[in-house]
């Protein structure tokens, strides 16, 4: 008898918490998804699937203590599935072997990452984000847009914190390279225009 009074409330409580989590995180999740898959519609679907999976999880009798890491985890897995479904770029395939080399000492230090980042214009970096292989893009976004800490990221992507640091470093380096390459290309264009006039 005492139980019966609560069952409806419990269910309603689940629903309310769930919907609240939706309101809180839908934007952030969407943003993350769009930056990763570069496809708005797909991103919306991924967010939907993330939440519906969370709901299914709740229905299965499990509890979700902290929605944020849970949702990010689900979303991330879905994004990985998405990538597997799409054709692998040769660059991505190349990157698979990266973990063997745990990175040079330089790459592990936070300070070098800082120094590196200081030389990069964040606005330009945003524009060339989609040139990064997903492995690097993932951590850059999680670190600088979603603002997860290194430990959170490592738990999320199931890699060591070292690997996370290395990837951030390499991601930043690549971003800078791409930005420089682009501005160089633009310079050359302007040059050729001038010489032709």
């Amino acid at each position: 008898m005492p139980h019966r009074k609560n069952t409806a409330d419990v269910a309603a409580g689940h629903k309310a918490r769930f919907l609240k989590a939706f309101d809180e995180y839908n934007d952030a999740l969407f943003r993350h998804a769009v930056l990763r898959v570069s496809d708005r519609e797909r991103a919306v679907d991924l967010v939907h699937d993330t939440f519906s999976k969370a709901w299914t999880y709740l229905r299965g009798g499990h509890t979700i203590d902290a929605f944020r890491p849970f949702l990010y985890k689900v979303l991330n897995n879905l994004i990985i599935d998405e990538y597997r479904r799409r054709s692998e770029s040769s660059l991505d395939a190349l990157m698979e072997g990266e973990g063997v080399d745990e990175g040079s000492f330089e790459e592990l230090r936070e300070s070098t990452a800082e120094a590196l980042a200081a030389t990069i214009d964040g606005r330009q970096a945003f524009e060339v984000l989609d040139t990064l292989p997903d492995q690097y893009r993932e951590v850059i976004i999680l670190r600088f847009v979603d603002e997860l800490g290194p430990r959170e990221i490592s738990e999320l992507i199931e890699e060591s914190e070292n690997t996370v640091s290395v990837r951030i470093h390499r991601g930043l380096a690549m971003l800078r390279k791409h930005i420089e390459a682009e501005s160089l290309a633009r310079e050359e264009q302007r040059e050729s225009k001038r010489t032709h006039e």
Partner: protein
Amino acid sequence: MKQFHSQLKKKAASLKLSAIERADLRERLHTYIEYHPMPDSVPAAQSTEVASESAATPTRAWGISILRFGSLVSVLMLTVLGSVSYVAEQAVPGDALYPIKVQFNEELRGGLALSPYEKVEWESERLSRRIAEARLLESEGKLTPAFEEKVAQAVRTHSDAARAGIAALRESDAEEAAIAEIVFASALDVQSTMLTADELARGTTSSSTDDIASAIAEQWRLAIESQTKSDGVPSLSRLRAHIELETTRAQELLASIKPYATEQEIADIERHLENINRKVAAASTTTDATNEAEEPRTLLREALQRTSKLIAFMTDIDVRETVTLSELLPAEYTSEEYEALIDSTVAEVETARTSITAAVSTSTDSEIASQVEIGLEELDELLERAQTQQESSDYLPAFTAANDARMIANDLRNLLGITPDGTSTSTASTTATSTTSTSTSTATTTDAGAGTTTESTSTDATVPTSTPAAVGTNTPPAEREE
């Protein structure tokens, strides 16, 4: 790092869901939650579970599958295509599997080796599924205009496909094509009745399902048009044969649902079946029973329409939940029944009239006399109207007019204090409204009653009995002018 961080973050902040996207997403999730409720709250969950499952697959009703090959397809889906396809059958808009249901499962099923006739049936089924989904979302306030447009479009697409199927069928078997036409039109009729019932229930004049309703009305109109064009077809014998099939099927359905349906439901359905059988019998006994004769064929066409609708009612839980049987199959007497009804009513009125005029001539109250005079004028007018309408076979208006005349006659009799058998009561008229006259005011909402009780001339005749308070508009199919 700080600057890089804030710059990047700021840029990224420009990516967000638009208000519409977010609202859509929320709705999708709401729908998802409704369809997969928490198992803890058992009573609520169960009822929505049942309702949702049947809405998603309106073919399931009292455990019976409407399409004969339905179970074969299910097995096919489960074993060959895997469980995803099977589970997708339950999907509704908002589910990830919904596209699989619509674009894969349904397409597959349509492509199976179905006879052309079955193909038309299947298009009809798809159409009603889309509408059922829309109605479900609408009832929860989640029908977006975008989806409504999709459904209206689906109505058009599936109707076109059905018509194409009918045209193809016409090449090989013109009569079967004509029958398929009738059945398809009935299906559209059922859908249209359901949408109207929804609207009435909601109490709104305009609604978000308007587009869908008008798409259906349009298709129905086209269906009726093409039906009237094909004359001589289908032949009497062909119609009879098909109705035989369908009524047998209806009987079987009735037998199988008996354990689950209520007594009232069973009684109603049986009555309708009797009605239909009588119609069929009447068609056979008309004097001109040649294969091309118009009247018996019209009767049989109507009988077929009604049988189709009856079967739809029995097999589709969605239909049952939205409309009552009398809304779907309005009360309808055969022409003979109407004639008999009208004749007896008119006779009754005329008898009453005689006693009224007799009574008023001996009355001394001038006020009453003038009231009676006015009343008699109205009565005469109604009688005349009833006669003209009866002559032009406008049975329902004729019957209504005759009935109205009878009501006036009753009032006048009460006014004069005379009883039906003509004897006057000693007291002058009182304004006491007789209960009999008010009870006959329900007479206009007729029901497919047993028809036999209508011969009585007593004023207490509460016209055909077991009226399940059918307040719906009772326009028999023949009279509808949309």
